[in-house]
Each structure stands twice: as structure tokens, then as C-alpha cells.
């Protein structure tokens, strides 16, 4: 198992390099350049200032040279400096945005799993029951509801009309004058709506997968034989069926791991949350290459790691995979 993981890890390196290469080319092919966007159109940079900036950014070099420089710095974990006027290191910018995005997404994922699994199981075992029908409706509503619309409605109801929750942001603007526990409580209040909105759509999808997967499993012969053995329905479903039905869910969860750091652009935009999504969008509009590339590399690396985890987790959940590997 360990050897297998190691081999996969080594194989991931050239893939990672390939990803950086492709994304580097694609980004530099996009029209517009960072220096053109710097400044406002009514007061453009003078020719000398523009040339100085281009030189400082290294954009005067041919693309292969730029790529080589960037990769060789990357190997030393130097992601470079942002092109925006604050000129801060990319890692610093990402580090400042990452915690909140991670926090939101991890909570979101936990909630989704915690609710989607029981909902899926219940609606599968009671197929076509009232519960199943209600959840089906809920799922389609969930799929069809645009995030931004739901978010605005929630703000209008809970923040403007009822005044229970703050409309946006992460902390009260006067948070530093509040007591320690009030600050914590205030922070939690700020998270309620963004998490609710982010969870709603995801929950719908995930519970549907769970239902589908469970429906397939309960029709299998071994479930029949478990029932025939006289096992209680709880044990049949909870022990025998559920574990098998979880397999596709594990795959989906594994694939959504890199999304954990991506951040939801819409939720961050509406709720004014300074997370990774906003950082990335702004960087793209400003053609802030170092920030875009830094972000991409981290996401790519995480995707590869997540795939690896998903494979390992498969082995844990599904004995057949472990056996099959030994034979090979």
C-alpha cells in the first residue's frame, strides 16, 4: 500500500509540471497584459514607466525564459510577487485568504455529508414514499435555485427584515471593542447565511447520488441473502448495504477536495467574504500572472493529492480493490 502510494506520488510530479506548463501558456495567450490594465485609461502610464514595469515583471523576456524562471523559483517554493500596486508576495496573499475559504468549505462539506447520507438512504429504502417525493422536490428546487438569488433573499429576510443576522462580511466593523466571547458569537453569526447558501445546492446533488447508489445496492443478491439470514433491516442497510453504497460518494468527495481551497465566487461576492474566490477573480481581471499561477499550482497539487487519497480510501472501503492489487 505504502509503495503504491509512493509510486503514485512520483508519477504526480511530471503531471504537475505539465499542468503548470499548460496553464502558463494559456494565461499568457489570453489577450490583455498586466501593464495595460495598471492604471486608469484616462491617465495611462508614460512609456518609460510602462517599460520599467515590464522589465521589473520580466515580461520583456521570451515566454520560454519567463516560464523557466518561474518554474525554477517555484522549485524553491518562491511564488513571486503580485503585480498589483501593493507588490506583496503571492504566498502571503494566498495565506491571508486561504483560512476563511477552507473553514467555510470544510464546514459546508461536513454538513452536506451529514445530511445527504441519511436523506439519500431514507429516500432509497422508502422509494416513492411521501418522504422520497418531498426530498425529490427539494432536490430539484435546490438544483434550480441560483446561489446569488437565494443569498439576496436570505439577506433581505434575516438581516434587513428580522435583523437576526448581519447581512455580509466576517466580523462586526467594531469587533475589536467587543468581548472575547461576543466576538466569537459575532463571527459565527456572520457565517450562518454563507454556509446555508453554499450547502443548499450541494446538499441536493449529494443526497441524490446517495439515493441512486443505495437503490442499486439494495437490489443486489447479497442484500437479499443478508435479509434471508434473518438480519434486522437496520443491520442489513446500515452495515451491509451502506458501506457499498458509500463508494461512489467517496469518489465524489475526493474529487471535491481541491474545491475546498477554490472558494465559491458567488457566495464570496454577495457576502463580501475576502476568500480565495475573490482573490482569483480579481487576479484574472488584472492579469496578475503570479497570483493566478500560484493559485493554479496549489489547486493542481491538491487535486493530485486528493486523487491519491481517494484511491487509498477506496482500498479501505472496498476490500476487492486491495485484493485485486495484491494479485497484480
Amino acid at each position: 500500500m505504502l509503495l503504491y502510494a509512493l509510486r503514485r506520488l512520483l508519477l504526480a510530479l511530471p503531471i504537475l509540471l505539465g499542468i503548470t506548463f499548460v496553464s502558463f501558456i494559456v494565461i499568457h495567450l489570453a489577450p490583455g497584459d498586466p501593464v495595460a490594465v495598471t492604471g486608469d485609461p484616462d491617465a495611462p502610464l508614460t512609456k518609460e514607466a510602462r517599460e520599467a514595469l515590464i522589465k521589473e515583471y520580466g515580461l520583456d523576456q521570451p515566454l520560454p525564459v519567463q516560464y523557466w524562471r518561474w518554474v525554477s523559483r517555484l522549485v524553491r517554493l518562491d511564488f513571486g510577487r503580485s503585480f498589483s500596486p501593493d507588490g506583496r508576495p503571492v504566498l502571503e496573499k494566498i495565506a491571508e485568504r486561504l483560512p476563511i475559504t477552507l473553514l467555510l468549505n470544510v464546514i459546508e462539506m461536513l454538513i452536506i455529508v451529514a445530511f445527504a447520507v441519511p436523506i439519500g438512504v431514507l429516500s432509497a429504502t422508502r422509494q416513492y414514499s411521501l418522504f422520497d417525493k418531498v426530498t425529490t422536490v427539494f432536490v430539484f428546487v435546490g438544483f434550480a435555485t441560483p446561489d446569488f438569488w437565494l443569498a439576496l433573499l436570505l439577506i433581505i429576510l434575516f438581516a434587513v427584515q428580522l435583523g437576526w443576522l448581519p447581512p455580509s462580511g466576517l466580523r462586526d466593523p467594531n469587533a475589536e471593542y467587543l468581548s472575547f466571547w461576543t466576538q466569537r458569537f459575532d463571527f459565527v453569526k456572520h457565517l450562518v447565511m454563507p454556509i446555508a447558501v453554499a450547502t443548499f445546492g450541494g446538499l441536493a446533488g449529494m443526497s441524490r447520488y446517495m439515493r441512486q447508489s443505495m437503490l442499486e445496492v439494495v437490489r443486489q443478491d447479497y442484500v437479499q441473502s443478508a435479509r434471508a439470514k434473518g438480519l434486522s433491516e437496520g443491520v442489513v442497510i446500515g452495515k451491509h448495504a451502506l458501506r457499498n453504497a458509500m463508494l461512489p460518494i467517496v469518489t465524489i468527495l475526493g474529487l471535491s477536495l481541491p474545491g475546498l481551497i477554490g472558494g465559491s465566487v458567488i457566495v464570496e461576492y454577495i457576502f463580501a467574504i475576502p476568500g480565495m474566490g475573490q482573490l482569483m477573480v480579481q487576479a484574472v481581471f488584472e492579469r496578475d500572472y503570479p497570483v493566478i499561477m500560484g493559485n493554479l499550482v496549489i489547486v493542481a497539487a491538491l487535486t493530485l493529492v486528493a486523487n491519491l487519497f481517494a484511491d487509498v480510501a477506496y482500498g479501505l472501503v472496498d476490500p476487492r480493490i486491495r485484493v485485486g492489487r495484491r494479485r497484480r
Partner: protein
Amino acid sequence: MRTSGWLLDTLASVALVALVLGGCGSEASVGMDTPRAAADAKPAHGDTLIEASFSNVSGLIPNITSDSASHRVGNHLYTGLITRDGDLKIIPDLAESWEFSRDCLHLTFHLRKNVKWHDGQPFTADDVLFTYRTMIDPRTPTAYRDDFLAVRNIEAPDPYTVRVDYAQAQAKALASWEFWMLPKHLLEPWAKQGKLREAPQNRSAPVGTGAYRFKEWKPGEKLVMTANRDFYMGRPYISRIVVRVIPSQATIFLELKARGVDYTETMTALQYTRQTSYPAFRKSLNKYSYPSNGYTYLGFNLRDPRFRDRRVRLAFAHAINKRELIDGVRQGLAREASGPFKPGTWAFNPDVQPVPYDPARAKLLLAQAGWVDHDGNGIVEKDGHPFRFEILTNQGNEERRRVAEIIQAELKDIGVAAEIRVIEWASLLKEYIKKRRFEALVLGWGVGSDPDQTSVWHSSQMGPDQLNHIGYDNPVVDELLERGRSSCHEAERAPIYHRLHEVLAEDQPLVFLYWGESLPAVASRVHGIVPTTNGILYNFEKWFVPKELQRFTSG
């Protein structure tokens, strides 16, 4: 006031530079929608004002940034030698007085004594010289170098006197000293290496002479400033400013309603007219309106022979119903543009009328130019070529897209087929505007603290990185521009700009559409706001919240 002439002031934060125009503000419509008796309230220190900003602050040394958020914050932290009052008149700031020689070549500033930087060091003429040298240094990444390049010699005979000589008379000479002064004792080593961006003063510890001191910056989230008790013009009343970054205008509006935000620079026209007219809103918020510093236009690539014909441009101008356009996209909150000078300022010529809506005349003009619909398919032709062209505009600005759509419909009525393409800003700039690969544009121009618009209209400004991208070449205009910029006396310059206004209106190098209104909202507990042509922020230090209405005890 801190509403300096250098602000980038736009909704999408890309389009218009709001260099505030000079002159008197008598004519412009300036208003407060919810007048209340503020005269009896007693000014008091204290309270926090929470401001919403669409965009993130990009750096804390405003001289090297060019976004409106950074400039707004910069205006609280830094000051210049001079500033402008509500009527846009130049008044003393760091300089308590100045003399300008009659020939506009020699300018002497007498600096205010006892001004201290936020770190306690005295502000002296050395700092002025340092700021000047930094601005003209080619390694300084600033977009605002031009005005300083006109200086021939600058010297400080004593710590409180600065003498500036110009080689030629410069209209903007005095106004350019409105620019933010930088502390020499802290920034000199960084400026010398051309690394101003990396200075701690740009990221975490800015030191200025302004009414507010920097306290905290959480990029993307908020920036906090506190009142400078030692401010040389007197301690400001509002004790603390929190600038919150909220990218969505819809969210800002809801935050206003939920009292999570006290001030927003501008609401949408729809919010202003339809969504704020109920008692609860009026009770907790005041809304204001004043003319913005930019106009929206339909511009042509004048290298295209079709648009080089003045009759065609004039036909388009007659075909567009500006009133309807304004009602359609701005709920009526804009004024029809007759030219490129801001209404109500001294350069504006009130005798020039906007081109009236007259589709019949438009058709006639087109026919005179040879464009006639021979085959009856609804599109006019000339030499067998139907009149089709493409209008480009930038993504992220709903208003401009709708302007383009209305123009498209109106041009169809006179037999011209226009297509619309919306392009992301960076691409539009680099691939289309700079390369002159466009037929027509719907965009906006900002206007400066000075009516000199040489960079936009002069035939010498057609280079790839210059602003006369429409390729306008008119010797009469060139000459007027040159004369207008070579005097520093308003009385001499005004007739020149009035004539220029006439010429541009007759020639319609582009169709001047409208000047939008800025529509800010401020919490009603804040008193002392007097809207003028110069907006509302110019007297921010005089804003106050009466003791009994203060919400936050902090500060």
C-alpha cells in the same frame, strides 16, 4: 477638502477618471433628497463612520496607485499643498499662501509651519522637493507624472518656502500641487531604489499629514483609520472610519438598509429612484445627487472613411434620443451632454445645446452623404456596401451595454445596422482600442480638475498608448487646445474653452451622450454634509454626529 483632482471614480472602477473640474458650481443640479433641519445640531467629536467600497484598496501610497478606493483612502491619510472647496476653488492646504507671477512662470509656496507627519516629524519644504523628485523619477510606477515634468526648476530657499519655475506657462501648474505629499524621512531609501511599492508605508504603515491616521488594513475585508487629533486644520469630528470592501452593489444596498454601512459613494439609479422612497429608509438615510465627473459617449474610429464624414456623425447624433436614453438607463438621473466640459463649471459654454433628436434630419444627412436604401431592405447603402458596423463596450457595465442596445435600435430606424460586442476590459484595451481595431465604442471619459483636454483631442496624441484613440485631427481644435493650456488665468482661458466647446459640438467627433449623476447615501445621523458640484466628501472633516445620535462610543 480631500476630494482631489486625481480620482478614478467609476462604478466598474475602470472607466472614468474623476479629475474634478475647476470653476463655480452655480448651475449644476446638486441636491439632497431628504432635507432636514441640521442647523440646530451641535457638532461633537466621536462615532465611527462605516463606508462601503466596491473594490479593494490596492496600496497605501496613493501616488503609485490608480484605483478609486486607494485614492479615497489616500485623501484621508495624505494632503497636498493646495486643495479645492465646494465650489472647486483652489484654497490653501499644506501651503498657507502662494504667489504666481503674472506670466505664469514662477510659483512660490509659503508652507504652513508646525505641520507634523503622523509619526511626529515636521513637514518641510524638503518633503515637497522629495515628492516632486519621486514623481518625475522614471522608476516610480505612477500614472500622474506629466504635470510635474513641466517644472523647469524647483528649490527651497528655506524650510517653509518652495519656489517652482516653469519653462512655459502651464494652465495646470498650480492645480498639480494638489497632489499628495510624501514623507522624505521614511520613503527616500525606497524611492531611490525604485521600490516604493515594497516600502512598509505602502502596505502596513503609511505616514501622511492627513486628517486621519492609519490603524489597520485587512486586504479584501476592511481598512480602519482614526482621527488625527493634531491635524493642522483642526481635529476632525468623526473619530473613526472603517472602509469595508463589499463587491456587490446589491449587498451594499442591503447593508445600508440594515444599518451595517453608513456611507456609499453611489447607488444605482434604480435604487435611488424606486427602492429608497419609503419612510424607514428616509428616516435612517439621506440620499444626495450631484453631477459626476464623466460623460458617456458613442465614439467612432475616424480612420474609417464612413465616420470621417461629419454628416454621418451628425446623422447619428440626431438619430439618438438622449432624453429617452437617460430615462431608460439612468431613470432620468443624468443630463444631456452638449460637449466634453462638465456642466456648471467655468469652461462649460451654456449657449451650446445638445444635438436635438430629429430622425428625419438624420436620414436627410445620411442621404446627403450618399447613404441611401436602394434595394429597400431597410439598410442604407453606398457604392453597393450596406452600412453595417460594430459597437464595442466593456464587460461589467450594464449601463453601457444598455446604452449600446438603445442606440442600436435607434440607428436601425435610420437604416444603419449596428452589432454590439461586449468585451472584457483588459482585452478591449489591449486588443481593440490600443490596436485601433474598432469601428465604434460606447465608453466614458472622465474630466479633469482642469478643462485642458489636450490628451484626448489633440492630433499629436494618436500614438498607440495615447488617448486620442478615435484619431481626431482638427487644426482648429489643436490651436484652441494649445492656447487654452498656455495660460494660468481663468479669465483668459474661459473664452477659449467656450469656443472649443462650440467647435466640438458642431463637429461631433463623437456623439456626446450624457453626464450621469453620482448618487451617494449617508446615514442620517451624520450632519454637516453640503452637496456641491464638488460632491460631498470635500468637507469630510466637518461632518459630525451630534452627541445624542452617536452609535459607536469607540474612538
